[in-house]
């Protein structure tokens, strides 16, 4: 019974990481790629670490696994936001199907590169 639970958690975690990679490869835009990879990979690694905590079942291993999950949940949004902000300020072109750009016009004219202002 315990092995079945661990196997389900492992398959779910690996599947989420695989779908995150599929989204990184297939999405048309860096911001869509980020929105795929950050959430799905966080959930995937969280499920894998939960499987590890269930498998060992000791206090020290489980607490370290929980601490790692907390660290990843805290740091992945920071890294994703930083990548998206830098990419936007550096003038990465948006997907042509984008319908909302709420950051537009909110920066000083010199802050965003010429390509962004021209659009």
């Amino acid at each position: 019974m315990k092995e079945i639970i661990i196997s389900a958690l492992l398959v779910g975690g690996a599947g989420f990481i695989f779908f995150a990679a599929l989204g990184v490869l297939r999405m048309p835009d860096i911001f869509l790629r980020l929105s795929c990879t950050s959430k799905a990979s966080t959930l995937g690694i969280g499920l894998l670490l939960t499987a590890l905590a269930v498998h060992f079942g000791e206090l020290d291993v489980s607490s370290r696994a929980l601490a790692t999950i907390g660290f990843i949940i805290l740091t992945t949004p920071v890294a994703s936001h930083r990548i998206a902000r830098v990419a936007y300020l550096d003038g990465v072109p948006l997907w042509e199907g984008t319908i909302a750009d709420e950051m537009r016009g909110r920066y000083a004219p010199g802050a965003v590169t010429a390509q962004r202002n021209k659009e």
Partner: protein
Amino acid sequence: MILRTVTSFVVFPLLAGALVLAFVRLLRGPHLADRIVAFDLIAVASAGIIVVSAITSGHSVLLDAASIWAVIAFLSVIAFTWYIERKGGI
């Protein structure tokens, strides 16, 4: 027994496929930020491989390696974005 079968035939191939797909994006990505996204995903998939290896081998010490790997990946993403902010991407 079922755990060994599942990890050998499902979990490790899925994580390896994720590595391959992210590596294709790492090679192709038009902007430097795309490569950073792919690198971040490669780091997460590698941490997942280390965690699954800890389960299959029974050595819980590998969890420390995975957590330190996650710390290093986060810091390198911050460093890469800092350099793009300073110098501009390609």
